[in-house]
Every structure is written in structure tokens, then in C-alpha cells.
């Protein structure tokens, strides 16, 4: 074995010896061309010359170019190094390599160690190595600086590849599968760092049990699956990582930085096998993007320690486009998802018994829990808010979500400026800023020209392109929300009873399952749609607004299926409130208050389908601050008789409006007296189920019929005022019912309109019990019986109209029946007015000195103890008043102060 030093200046390493080679550095040339037995040196004494590598002629035992300052021009040729011990190659950083520099190590040695010491060459001057044979050991040294490689190809090698620190700027190809080679484990890192070319990693099924770092600017692509040890870290610092549809397995994946970097998943995935560590570390995802289906599988199956997933938990959130799916295999250790992590699918496989810490996370895909696992309770929310997916599925497998849940995103701008073609919206939090490419809806902005659908074009917290050319100064702005996808329950979903489900946007598909939460809040102007199917929502919270929802006219809150919302709290503490949106009839919701002995209040000026208190035993009423009646589109059922306290002193002056355009509504008051007003409006019908009693207060005890059909169904109705003085098309059915009017004024009591009114009055009795003045007016109806049961004054009649009462009677004395002076007449069949001695019943006109007409077509009228004044009795009947007083201006009456005088008169007649 001899040494050969290049002294040939600029020339070619070929088969011609010439004076190119010396035996010593800078020595005299003229030695033979190096053979496989010779060590070749290019050093400082070789000069800054260019040496061209000839084709097939550059061979040696070992090669040392560490101190060379010239250029080795490889073209497409290579140098073959045939040695089998010690340093096979010593490189440095002072030379230049051109072409495709390649050294082929072709020894077939079975023993010893071949060392490659590439030195600290730059990427441009790094050398490629092919290890084509041998079962010995290949290692690299950093004694001459960082071990930098271009390509490192071990195809044909069957020995041991030692773990050393390397930087590779080209491809890494491990020995062929089945070669028997050993890839040693260790802590030394291989770094892929090219800034010039794509790098391919071909592991051929070998486990690379050492750390790997990707830190270049180009693509690092897997050729086949890549597996590194379960305790090792794959660090992704920059560049592009192309899984090329393969699986990258590592203990830990770390990519916490702000560099530009991306992962091309394709259909591949990253499998994390580590535990007791932050196995996915991307706490800062600024600059991170991805393509393909971003799937990360976590396969640790033990119970030790805590695995932490950190995906963009700081400002500069990646949003939906940067969210990654995490699937956990069955395991039982603790899991932490760091706050503000952005996740696509979060899946815990069957058999998982993990305990998952409570943290704020954003889920853009499916959410699947395992039946044996535990989600720690807490106040940090989980938000489902995809703007790109068509559907997100939630499968809880009976695991309780004892933390707040948000569906959809509601982003309140803190400022909105701009005009012309661009509107800039600033968000309160960048963590909820919608993903680039998603759309958001802006509503309730003044001027309204700014309302519309926007496409997000920037991932910063400003910059939405507006689609019109509207101009103006925006003074007020409303909620900006994602036009979100469908969130569908795959099984029953149960949240903690002190937690709130906040529903901001998109479609909530119960999929006919039961959703249970403490509180349900849906107060914004975004489009929302609940698909109930046959499912139900239970709100089990207490002492708060258990249901609160609102809507805007332009973006209504809608639902399909049969809505059923059960308020199930069974305790006695605090006040529960429901406030459904002011909504069209089709979108009003059904509420069932199934339990509780607390206070329960209904927010007025809101629309409800049915409100059913069956099962409730506390105190119920309207929210005192209500600004209008609660609107009922179906049924109102009050608690079972006697078990609750309702609509008393703490109630608002407003009550209920039965307002269906089509439904047959019912009102079951179960004997509770309501200190509220009742309005029946619209074209549907309302039928009482049992007697109904309103307060005697004129201000709150009013029952008003303005449209549709109202039927007492034979039950008693007690109220201060019954009013149907309007032009609405309406049917009043009082068949076989007693309607007791306890209040009234000179023109209110039981009063109606001629217009569009249909009467069903058979067997009815309108009873007035006021001790003051009240009023009866129902001109087109034929009322079987009107009864004065109070001690005040009952005014009867309508101007220029005839009223008809079959039987007008009284049950109290004294009292006054005062006929409207301006009415045409009052038609009666039976006038059963009777006072007693000293307690006369007064029959007079509402205007003193002006007669009011009462008419009966035939027969005889006999009354007793009346004080009659300004009365014109007519129609053909005989009008006789016994023990009565004629106070003047009467005609048609035969009035006697006692019976004998009357008989005397009768005899004369």
C-alpha cells in the first residue's frame, strides 16, 4: 500500500500517470496511477487547480481531500474507494466539487470499520457515497467538522450502519430489505437540510432508531414508509415534508417554530409511538401548511405518563386548513391537548380508557370518544366549527362532556372600517378567525349594504374581500359568523348540567338522538338549523337561562322534525328562564318543564310552540321585565292542579298570545288563576281544556279574541274583560259555558265587533260580577243568557245596533242595568230582572233624559222591584213592573209601586 499525492496541477485523474502523482505531499510527480492499494491525497500542495475525474479510472484504497483548495470536477464520473479499514474518506470545506460528485465504497469486507469523514463541506460541495458491499461497519466521523453528505446510498451493504451525526443534502437509501444489515440505534441526529434539491428517504423497511431533523427549504420525500424509534424525535424545522402516501412513524414529532414549512400527507399518515412526552409539538404553527388528508395516529398502548398534543396553541393559529386529525389507539395513559389546539378529527379508538385533560380546543372534523375514557371537567370549551367540511360527527359513547361546547363560530368584530370594494373586519380573537377559503356571513351591519357573504382571503385578523362596491361609514356592526357545516350526533350526547352548549352557526343534526346540556345558548344572527328528527334536547341546568336563542329576520333560526326541549332540573333553588327566539310559527320550539320546584320564568316577546309544565311544582310566570306577551303557536299546559304556584304577583303585566295560523291550540290552565292578559289571534283555533280564570284586574285580566276560533269547550271562563272589538275574522264558541266578567268600564267588559264574527252561543251565560261599571256589547250574537251578578252598573248595547239577549237576568240587588241610549234597541225574550224591597234594580238609559229602547215581540214581561227611567219598552209584549218605581221618561211600561195597584190596572185593562 502506498500514498499518492496529486501534484499534477490542472489535469485529469485517468489512466495516464504522467507527473500527476507523488508519494509525498508536494513531492515530485511521476509515480504510477493510484490503484485500489493506494491512498489518494488531494491537499494544499495540490494547488487551487481543477482536477477532472476520469471515467472508470479513479480508484483508490482511501481518499483524503481534507486540505484541498482546488476543484474536483466529477462530471458524471465517480471515485471508487476499495479499502476496508479506518478512514475511507476525509473531506473538508476548502475545496469545490462540480458535477455529481460520488464516491463508491465497494469493499466486501466482513470485519472492521470503514469511516467516512466528510468534513464540513457546504451543500454545494458535499459528496455522495454509495456503499455497495461489505458486512462490516460503516460509520462517519465529525472530527473534521460536520459530517455532510450529498446522497448516502447503502444499497448492497449488509453490515452495520453506525449511528452518527450527519447532515444529508441529498437522498438517503438504506440497505435493501432482507440484506441482513443493521441500522444502529443512537442519539445522534441525521439532518436533511437541502436548500437546492428534493431529498428522498428510502428506508427499505429498516427502523431508523435515532433522531431525524428536516431543516432545509426543499422537499424531503419518503420512498416507502419511514420508521424511527419510539423514543426518537422527528424534528421538522422547515421545508416541505412529503409523506408520498406513506407512513412516517416516530416517537415524537416536533415542529415548533415560525418557519415556512408544509407537510404533504397525501393518503399517508404520521404515527406517533411515544409516550410521557409532548408527542406532537407544534405550539407555534405560524408558517405551517399542509395538503392531503392530515392524519396522525398515536399508537402507544400503555398507561404510563401523559401524552401531550400541541398543535398551534399560540397566536398565529393555523385555522381549519392547518388542522390535523389525531387518532388514538386503545391506551390508558393521560392525554393533554394544549389550549387552543386546532384539530380536524379527534378519535379515541374502542378500548381507550384515557383521562383527557380539559382544555380549549377547536375541532373541524369528527369527534369520537371511547366508552371507558374520562374527559376531565372544566371551564375550557371545545368548539366544533368547520367552515369547509360538509359534516362533523360527534360520537360520545356515553362519555360525559363536562365542559362548555360551542357549535359554529361567533366572532364579534371589534371594529369595521373601509369602503369601496374592501371591508376590513377586526376580530376580538385571532384564535377563532376563520380559515382561508371559508366563507363568513356578515349581518346586521349598518349600513346594510355591508351585509353579505365574504370569502376569507387572509389568515391574519384583517382583510375580507367584499363583493360589492358599497360605500359609507360603518357605525354599527353585528355578529360575524362562519357559514358552518352540519354537526351531527351519532349517539346521545350528554354534557355536564352546569355547562352551556353555545350554538353559533351551522346545522345541528340531533340525528334523532338525545342531547343533554345544562344550558343552551344560541344568541346571534347567524344562520342556524336544528334537525331534531325524533330527538330531544334536555336542558338540565338551574338558576339561569337554560334556553336562550334569538334570530334575525334575514337569517332565521330554523329546525326540522319535531322539536322537544325538556327542562329537567328537579331541584328547588333559583330561577330558570327560557327565551326562545322571536320567530315564525314554523320555527317556534316546544318546551316541556318536566320537573323542579324552583322558579321558572318564560321570556315574553318570544315565540314558542308548546309550553307544557306537567311535572313542575314550583312557581311559574313570565320574566318580569318582559316587553310583550309570550307567543304560543300550539299548546299551553300549566302544572297539575294544586302542586305549583303560578302567575302571581311576580309576573309581568304581559301574558300569552295564542297565535297559530293553522293549529288547533289548547290551553290547559289546571285551575291556576293567571294575572296576565290572553290574546287569541291569527286564523288557528284555541280550545280550553278545563276552566280558565284570569285576574279581576282590568289591566291584566283581559282576554282578547282578534282572530281565528276560540272555544271554551263548555268550561267556565273567568276574566276581567273579554274583548273581541276588532275586525279580524273570528269565531266565538261559548257553547254551554259560563263566562264571568269581573271587571270593566263604561265601554269594556264583554264587548265585541259586528265585523267578521261568528257566534256559537247555545247554552252560554255571560255573568257580570263587577261592583263598578261594566259593559256588554255583542250586537250580532244571540246570547242565551246575560246575568248581572254584581252590584255595579251593567251597560248594554252598541250605538246604532241591536243587541239580542234571550234572557237578561240578575242575581244581585241592588244593581243597575243601563241600556245604551244610542243603540237601536235591546231585544229580549225573557227579562228576569228582580230587585227586593229596598234593593231595587235600576233599569235606565246611559244618557239621562234620553230613552233607550228595549223590545220583546210578544207575551208579557213581569219584573219586580225595579227603578225604571228613560226606558222605552216596545215590540208587542206587555211590560209590567211590580213594586217598582217610575223615575220618569218611560214609555210602554206599566209600572206599579205595588202588586194591588198593578192588578187594579190589569183589571181596568
Amino acid at each position, binding site marked *: 500500500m502506498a500514498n499518492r499525492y496529486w501534484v499534477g496541477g490542472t489535469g485529469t485523474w485517468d489512466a495516464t500517470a504522467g507527473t500527476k502523482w507523488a508519494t509525498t505531499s508536494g513531492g515530485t510527480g511521476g509515480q504510477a496511477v493510484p490503484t485500489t492499494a493506494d491512498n489518494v491525497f488531494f491537499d494544499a500542495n495540490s494547488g487551487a487547480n481543477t482536477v477532472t475525474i476520469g471515467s472508470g479510472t479513479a480508484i483508490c484504497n482511501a481518499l483524503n481531500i481534507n486540505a484541498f483548495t482546488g476543484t474536483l470536477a466529477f462530471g458524471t464520473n465517480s471515485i471508487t474507494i476499495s479499502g476496508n479499514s479506518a478512514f475511507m474518506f476525509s473531506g473538508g470545506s476548502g475545496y469545490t466539487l462540480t458535477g455529481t460528485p460520488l464516491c463508491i465504497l465497494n469493499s466486501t469486507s466482513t470485519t472492521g470499520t470503514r469511516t467516512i469523514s466528510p468534513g464540513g463541506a457546504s451543500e454545494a460541495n458535499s459528496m455522495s457515497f454509495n456503499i455497495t458491499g461489505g458486512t462490516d461497519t460503516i460509520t462517519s466521523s465529525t472530527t473534521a467538522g460536520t459530517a455532510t453528505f450529498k446522497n448516502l446510498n447503502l444499497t448492497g451493504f449488509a453490515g452495520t450502519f453506525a449511528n452518527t451525526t450527519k447532515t444529508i443534502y441529498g437522498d438517503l437509501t438504506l440497505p435493501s430489505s432482507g440484506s441482513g444489515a443493521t441500522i444502529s440505534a443512537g442519539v445522534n441526529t441525521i439532518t436533511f437540510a437541502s436548500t437546492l434539491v428534493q431529498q428522498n428517504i428510502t428506508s427499505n423497511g429498516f427502523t431508523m432508531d435515532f433522531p431525524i431533523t428536516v431543516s432545509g427549504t426543499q422537499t424531503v420525500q419518503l420512498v416507502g414508509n419511514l420508521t424511527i424509534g419510539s423514543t426518537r424525535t422527528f424534528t421538522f424545522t422547515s421545508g416541505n415534508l412529503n409523506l408520498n402516501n406513506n407512513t412516517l412513524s416516530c416517537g415524537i414529532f416536533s415542529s415548533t417554530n415560525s418557519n415556512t414549512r408544509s407537510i404533504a400527507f397525501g393518503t399517508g399518515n404520521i404515527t406517533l409511538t411515544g409516550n410521557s412526552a409532548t408527542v406532537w409539538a407544534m405550539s407555534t404553527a405560524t408558517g405551517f401548511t399542509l395538503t392531503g388528508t392530515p392524519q396522525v395516529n398515536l399508537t402507544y398502548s400503555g398507561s404510563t405518563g401523559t401524552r401531550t398534543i400541541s398543535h398551534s396553541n399560540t397566536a398565529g393559529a393555523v385555522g381549519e386548513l392547518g388542522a390535523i386529525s389525531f387518532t388514538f389507539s386503545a391506551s390508558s395513559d393521560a392525554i393533554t391537548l394544549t389550549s387552543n389546539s386546532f384539530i380536524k378529527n379527534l378519535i379515541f379508538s*374502542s378500548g381507550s380508557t384515557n383521562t383527557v385533560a380539559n382544555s380549549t380546543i377547536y375541532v373541524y372534523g369528527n369527534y369520537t370518544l371511547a366508552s371507558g375514557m374520562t374527559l376531565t371537567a372544566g*371551564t375550557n*370549551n371545545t368548539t366544533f366549527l368547520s367552515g369547509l367540511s360538509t359534516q362533523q360527527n360527534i*360520537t360520545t*359513547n*356515553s362519555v*360525559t362532556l363536562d365542559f*362548555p361546547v360551542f357549535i359554529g363560530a361567533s366572532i364579534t368584530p371589534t371594529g369595521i372600517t373601509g369602503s369601496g370594494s374592501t371591508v376590513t373586519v377586526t376580530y376580538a380573537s385571532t384564535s377563532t378567525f376563520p380559515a382561508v377559503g371559508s366563507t363568513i356571513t356578515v349581518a346586521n351591519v349598518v349600513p346594510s349594504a355591508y351585509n353579505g357573504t365574504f370569502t376569507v382571503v387572509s389568515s391574519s385578523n384583517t382583510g375580507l374581500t367584499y363583493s360589492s362596491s358599497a360605500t359609507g361609514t360603518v357605525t354599527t356592526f353585528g355578529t360575524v359568523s362562519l357559514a358552518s357545516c352540519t354537526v351531527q350526533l*351519532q*349517539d*346521545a350526547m*350528554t354534557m355536564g*348540567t*352546569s*355547562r*352551556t352548549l*353555545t350554538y353559533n352557526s351551522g346545522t345541528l343534526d340531533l340525528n*334523532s*338522538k*338525545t342531547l*343533554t346540556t*345544562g*344550558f343552551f*345558548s344560541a344568541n346571534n344572527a347567524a344562520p342556524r338549523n336544528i334537525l331534531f328528527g*325524533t*330527538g*330531544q334536547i*334536555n336542558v*338540565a*341546568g*338551574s*338558576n*339561569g337561562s337554560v334556553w336562550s336563542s334569538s334570530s334575525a329576520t334575514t337569517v332565521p333560526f330554523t329546525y326540522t322534525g319535531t322539536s322537544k326541549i*325538556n327542562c*329537567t*332540573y*328537579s*331541584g*328547588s*333553588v*333559583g330561577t330558570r328562564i327560557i327565551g326562545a327566539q322571536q320567530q315564525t310559527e314554523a320555527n317556534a320550539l316546544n318546551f316541556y318543564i*318536566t*320537573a*323542579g320546584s324552583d322558579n321558572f320564568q318564560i321570556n315574553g316577546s318570544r315565540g314558542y310552540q308548546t309550553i307544557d309544565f306537567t*311535572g313542575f311544582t314550583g312557581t311559574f310566570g313570565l320574566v318580569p321585565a318582559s316587553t310583550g306577551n309570550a307567543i304560543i303557536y300550539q299548546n299551553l299546559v300549566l302544572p297539575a292542579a294544586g302542586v305549583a304556584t303560578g302567575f302571581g304577583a311576580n309576573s309581568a303585566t304581559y301574558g300569552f298570545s295564542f297565535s297559530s295560523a293553522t293549529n288547533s291550540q289548547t290551553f290547559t290552565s289546571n285551575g291556576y288563576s293567571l294575572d296576565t292578559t290572553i290574546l287569541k289571534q291569527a286564523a288557528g283555533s284555541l280550545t280550553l281544556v278545563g276552566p280558565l280564570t284570569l285576574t279581576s284586574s282590568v289591566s291584566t285580566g283581559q282576554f282578547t279574541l282578534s282572530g281565528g276560533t276560540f272555544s271554551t269547550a263548555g268550561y267556565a271562563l273567568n276574566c276581567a274583560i273579554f274583548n273581541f272589538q276588532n275586525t279580524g275574522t273570528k269565531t266565538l264558541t261559548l257553547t254551554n259555558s259560563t263566562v264571568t266578567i269581573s271587571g270593566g268600564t263604561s265601554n269594556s267588559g264583554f264587548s265585541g265587533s259586528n265585523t267578521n264574527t261568528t257566534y256559537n252561543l247555545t247554552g252560554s251565560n255571560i255573568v257580570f260580577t263587577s261592583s263598578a261599571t261594566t259593559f256588554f256589547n255583542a250586537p250580532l250574537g244571540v246570547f242565551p243568557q246575560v246575568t248581572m251578578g254584581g252590584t255595579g252598573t251593567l251597560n248594554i248595547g252598541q250605538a246604532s245596533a241591536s243587541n239580542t239577549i234571550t234572557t237578561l237576568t240578575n242575581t244581585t240587588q241592588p244593581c243597575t242595568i243601563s241600556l245604551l241610549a244610542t243603540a237601536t234597541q235591546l231585544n229580549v225574550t225573557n227579562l228576569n230582572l228582580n230587585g227586593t224591597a229596598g234593593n231595587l234594580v235600576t233599569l235606565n238609559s246611559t244618557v239621562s233624559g234620553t230613552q233607550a229602547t228595549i223590545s220583546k215581540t210578544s207575551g208579557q214581561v213581569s219584573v219586580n222591584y225595579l227603578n225604571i227611567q228613560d226606558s222605552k219598552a216596545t215590540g208587542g209584549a206587555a211590560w209590567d213592573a211590580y213594586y217598582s218605581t217610575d223615575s220618569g221618561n218611560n214609555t210602554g211600561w206599566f209600572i206599579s209601586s205595588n202588586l194591588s195597584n198593578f192588578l187594579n190596572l190589569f183589571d181596568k185593562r
Partner: protein
Amino acid sequence: MVIDYTITQNGYTFSDALILDDDNTLTPEEIEAMKQARFDKWYKIITTPVDNPVFQE
């Protein structure tokens, strides 16, 4: 395999689904027991009043 089921007890209705592997070996009795266990867990939550919410968001 998805098994939808509904259990109504004492006026409370629970609509849920068991999502099982297609090749599961559970007996009908075990499946019924799973349904009842999930209902019982839910029923306990919904019928146990929490008077003073720890946190209302």
C-alpha cells in the same frame, strides 16, 4: 354496526345508539345490558339536580 335504541322511563326518554364493530361477539343480553347501562348513567345525571352551577358560561 349501529344499533339505535330508545328507552323511556319515568317520563324521561333517552334516544341513543350503540356503535359496535361489525364483527363484535356481544350476545343479545350483553347488548341489552349496554343499553341499560348507558341509560342509567344518563338518567342519574339528568335526575340529580345541581343547585349551584359551578360555572355557567
